[in-house]
């Protein structure tokens, strides 16, 4: 089955990330790179996203033209920092992978709609 892992974080997660020393940061990136290397065979497209401050949203209301706003869709403190498509047997395998994610925060697992 195909899933997308959404790497999410709260304002606290972001603050903890900001507070890391350069050495800690290097170590964290090495862990994340190691995780991607370990699961390489199961991972399709993946990207880290620029921060929510860089987001622009186009909202469709019930009437009139869509409205362009500065900021992300998710209001408040949570934001999505990146994603990875994965191809695994079932939700248990996806859960096993997500539980070893070294980037902290929250990993949301969403099945991908397939053609049938």
């Amino acid at each position, binding site marked *: 089955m195909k899933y997308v892992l959404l790497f999410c974080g709260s304002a606290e997660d972001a603050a903890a990330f900001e507070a890391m020393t350069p050495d800690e940061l290097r170590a964290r990136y090495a862990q994340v790179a190691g995780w991607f290397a370990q699961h390489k065979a199961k991972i399709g497209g993946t990207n880290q996203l620029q921060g929510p401050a860089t987001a622009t949203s186009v909202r469709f209301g019930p009437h009139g033209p869509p409205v362009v706003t500065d900021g992300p869709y998710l209001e408040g403190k949570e934001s999505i920092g990146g994603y990875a498509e994965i191809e695994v047997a*079932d*939700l248990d395998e996806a859960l*096993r992978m997500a539980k070893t994610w070294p980037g902290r925060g929250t990993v949301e*697992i969403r099945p991908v709609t397939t053609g049938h």
Partner: protein
Amino acid sequence: MARAGDGRDPPRDDGALNAARDALSAVFREEAGRLAASVTRILGDFEAAEEVVQDALLAAWRQWPSDGIPERPGAWLWTAARRRAIDVLRRNVRYRERVPALSFPAEQAGEDDRLMLIFTCCHPALSQETQVALTLRTVCGLSTGEIASAFLVSEAAIIQRLTRARRKIATAGIPYRVPADDELGQRLAGVLAVIYLLFNEGYLCSAGDTPQRRDLTDDAEWLAALLARLMPAEPEVLGLLALIRLHRARAVTRFDAEGRLVLLRDQDRARWDHAGIAAAADLVVRAAQKRRPGPYQIQAAIVACHAEAPSWAATDWPQILLLYDALLRHQPSPVIRLHRAIVLGQVLGPQAALDETDALACDLDRYHLYHATRAEFLRELGHPARARQADERALGLTANPAERALLEQRLA
């Protein structure tokens, strides 16, 4: 059998009718989960299996009460399920080849199928209340009406919750299998939590005079016994089964003739089911021999100590205190510390118990039993005014009629 709450006239012969209903429920519970489990395995799809199984079960609900329970109820249900499957599934390419395999006795039908069903219903990707409802529906074969009345919610809400759950199992890829060894411990803890919650739900509401409501403690015991048969090597399963049986063996004395709660120290121990208690205590010993202690085994050991004591005064309090210390290492919770404080009072006296209780003030200030317990210690220490205050506080925090009656009696 009349479903709960369908507003029919009361039957003339309650006893005979209730006996017939209980017999039907027992057969139904035994067969419904078995059928659901095997059909799910053969079709490989939780939703499609549900559709087929539900029709078979509905047909049984309609026919068995008037025609009598068939000689081979499992075979009867299989035939009904197969007929339905041929009607609705054979046009679908995904199932066409699988439908012929739907015959009784199910190919490789073992109890393992039900174990897979239990683990899927209790998957952590479903909310716990959904796990409970799905287990009752699919493993125990309760009707949605029975589940709704047991949890005091509308039947529509239960139906919606179950529909969403089945949809999620299918689309999110929740697997139909017993988890691998490295995950089994954690997943089993989830299953046991569902059974324990079910037991507590039934136990707490058993005070009211509601004979038409299904006895969930019976379903919880049945599930724990099934799991103990399917996973004989797991000591925590035995522990939970023993715990449930030890409570049920003493249930008859929990309330007096007027439905008022009777505290353990005042219960008539001669009326307990002593054979049942001895058998359950043997289970605790058998579990302990596996040398993998856990919270259910320890709780069962505590309840066994109480159940085997000839009186409140002649209870082995130091042993129970040791067991509470062990339980706190597994589950460091303020409520367990409160129970331990009561035991401490029996070993070291009310002042030590009150000091220990006071240390829990910030955690348990909104918990009625915290104040009711403090009131008892304060009375023993000769502070009736402060005890009264604490009882009043407890009364303000509980809506349970049996508990309220007990507190009001104290305050009168």
